[in-house]
């Protein structure tokens, strides 16, 4: 009969309308609660009815592999020997592999010898040009540049805010481990240590000459019969994950205001300078 196709279609839209209420009742409105289980129901494959997420009152946390504008990894402030040190060795691979060529690196030279030092003097990323492809992080041989998860970068003036310099790009290793625990763990397995490759090397050298300037990493290294370390590390990852879950509810490390961050960084740099003076 003419019109039945139309009626069937209308019945479907009506069903969608009613279903959204039925689904709400079935889950007793838990769908709108914040916990992982309930949010997972609303956004999952089984849901019917309303799936909407009310941004910015709610945001969908991005998955680990999500990539948005790179940042540089520096050693944590509490690292005994390399606090605040760049992981980047300014090898330039990220700049070469960058499709829109938005990465600019100034390689530093040692003032005495004139030879290049393995630490960038300047590092710039023009985020207006960056196409978020993730090649820099993918091809970095030192795990020193990573893609961030913070996508809320809007600003009122692009000319003054959109070239990120080294200071703005630098974030501690612990931040990377908090936003991407699984990937950071996998990278650690490849690297063989939670620290930068060079840190492990230095520590080994340090313990060999028994200067014992930093007993803790030396001890860690001594226990680095591969199996033992892996076990220890996976325990650490578990602890980490718990810690992340705990911080997730409250303020995350990077929602602290910038002044505190600056303060921490300044202190770390002071310590670094002292150490350099002592060592040199």
């Amino acid at each position: 009969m003419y019109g039945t196709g139309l009626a069937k279609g209308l019945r479907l839209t009506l069903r969608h309308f009613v279903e959204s209420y039925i689904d709400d009742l079935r889950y007793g409105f838990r769908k709108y609660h914040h916990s992982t289980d309930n949010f997972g129901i609303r956004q999952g494959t089984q849901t019917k009815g309303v799936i909407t997420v009310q941004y910015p009152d709610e945001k969908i946390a991005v998955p680990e592999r999500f990539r948005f504008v790179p940042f540089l990894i520096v050693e944590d402030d509490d690292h005994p020997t390399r606090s605040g040190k760049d992981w980047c060795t300014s090898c330039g691979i990220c700049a070469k592999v960058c499709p829109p060529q938005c990465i600019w690196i100034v390689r530093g030279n040692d003032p005495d010898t004139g030879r290049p030092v393995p630490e960038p003097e300047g590092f710039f990323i023009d985020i207006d040009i960056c196409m978020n492809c993730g090649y820099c992080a993918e091809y970095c041989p030192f795990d020193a540049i990573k893609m961030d998860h913070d996508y809320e970068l809007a600003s009122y003036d692009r000319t003054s805010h959109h070239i990120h310099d080294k200071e703005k790009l630098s974030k501690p290793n612990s931040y990377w481990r908090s936003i991407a625990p699984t990937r950071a763990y996998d990278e650690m397995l490849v690297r063989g240590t939670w620290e930068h490759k060079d840190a492990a090397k230095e520590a080994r050298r340090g313990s060999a000459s028994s200067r014992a300037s930093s007993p803790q990493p030396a001890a860690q290294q001594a226990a680095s019969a591969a199996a033992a370390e892996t076990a220890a590390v996976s325990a650490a990852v578990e602890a980490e994950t718990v810690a992340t879950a705990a911080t997730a509810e409250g303020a995350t490390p990077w929602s602290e205001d910038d002044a505190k961050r600056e303060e921490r960084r300044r202190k770390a740099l002071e310590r670094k300078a002292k150490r350099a003076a002592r060592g040199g």
Partner: protein
Amino acid sequence: MENLAAAEQSVERLSIDDSIEYLKANHSQAIKLDDRDGYEGVIVDSDMLVDIARVIRDELGFDYLSSATAVDYLGEGDHMEMVYHAYRSSGGGALVFKAQTDREAAEIPSLVSVWRGADFQEREAWDLYGIRFPGHPNLTRILMWEGFEGHPMRKDWREAYYEEEQKPFDSRWPGGHVHRAEEKNVFGKNVSYPPDIDLNRLMDTSEEAVYQSLGLGVDIERIMDKDGFETNELVVNMGPHHPSTHGVFRMLLTVDGETVTSLEPVMGYLHRNHEKIGERNTYLHNIPFTDRLDYISSMGNNHGYVLAVEQLMSLGRKYNPPTYRCEALRVMMVELSRIVNHLWAIGFWLNDIGAFFTPVLYFIQERERILDFFEAVAGSRMMCNYMRFGGLFGDLPERIKSVSNLTNDRVRDYNTMQFLTEMINERIPRTIDELEVLLTQNEILIERSMGVGILSAEDALNFSAAGPLLRGSGVAYDIRRADPYSIYPELDFDVAVEEEGDMYARYRVRVTELRESVRILKQILPRLESTQGESIWADGKPGAYAPRVPHGESYGRVENGKGELGYYIVSAGGRGGSSNPWRYHVRAPSFINLTPLGHMSKGHKVADIVGILGSIDIVLGETDR
């Protein structure tokens, strides 16, 4: 010779090599083999090109001209070349033929009289390379504006923010002191006009002047000549800022009352010279750029490009083909993006013909789940950048898991395979069922779409239409079956085809393809289970960041959601190969499928034009490149 004579009656089934032999035997004066290292096909004498093309089409049966594009060999022989890829609609590989011409006063006879599908492609070659095509009915610029100086794809043409011939640029490292290109080259100073240009002509805003300067073949005098109220034809501009044109696309209509008498598509508003950028880029750099072509199905774009480069790489010694798991993952991603593409296409086509946003939102809801999956696996929802030469960005993660980072972040955590299984076995089929309930028997939809925008099978082939547009006209041509790649030969699926050639037939083709994609995905799932743990890289580790690609040419094509997506790539390096492509051409289905738009629209009402355009399914990122 005897063999050839015996095969005369079955010439249409000759293999590619035998076809070339046949051409050489019968037209030896006009044909010479292309014996450059890594090249294929024949070079045809320019003067004989049209005759040879007729032989190729009529005698040898290569009735489908897939791609026609130009290459500038400046410094590599100093000539221009047109490269044609012709296929048989019954399936099989390409017969590649080329015509060469001098760089100055470049001229090659037009093939529009043989394949009308060459129309836009020759206009593009004229626009970007400055090759003239005597015999072309309307040889005007198509992507650039009429006042543009020069032909930007020529090797000696340099863009406004030119830095170096090839990436990576030396200024980035080790002395990378940052600057903005726009500050060095201020807006307004980056434009130069040709010496003989009359800006007043371009500024003249009278209707007559505007349409004459655009050279769109509108017979404005016939319209303007009539006095007063006798005039019953009208020129209407639809677009570029029109919500139904799916982006910045313009259609220039002449209408007699409500009935369309002629239609000229005008495009190029989103032109960014993707191909020039591609030739500055290294091979690897191009993968994320391909995401930006047809941004609805970026996985398919990646696939076509990596196939083309892998074809070239396989000419070299150090090349490992992708592993089975890698191929299975590729096919899965491509089929998921085909589902996304068709849901999107059907949804917005419905918007165009008046079912405003109710159905499309149901489909987008499904698309969201697929994009969530892409995001968790590839790192981005739309700009996936997932495929690499000989591998992939990464294997499936164990869990689709997010980590709270911003304030108000809500966390999700699913098992990847479970998520995928539920999506493929339950959600997507359910949505397709709903789609059919909602639409297939809907009387309004049937009234609006049946018998509208008809394209016959012969025309579809001749116009080089591709994808659902071609299959909706009764030509069962699907590259996944006709010229298979990846693991498609071992998968069980049917080619969707409808005979009517109208809007409704195209809709039916898309629905069938959705179901066939689900069928393929259901076969992929057990393959993923059985290859669990296998590496996605043949030698277990990711490919190099600056691969060198051996000398030669390749044409990689895939059946994308919108039709045949092809990449023509020339590597012109020396012995060791090159790190940047010499020529990087995209055979964009959204672009070439517009060739028959004018033909299909003739005689229909203005409101139907919107639907016909929607039923072709274009994305301007790919049309304009």
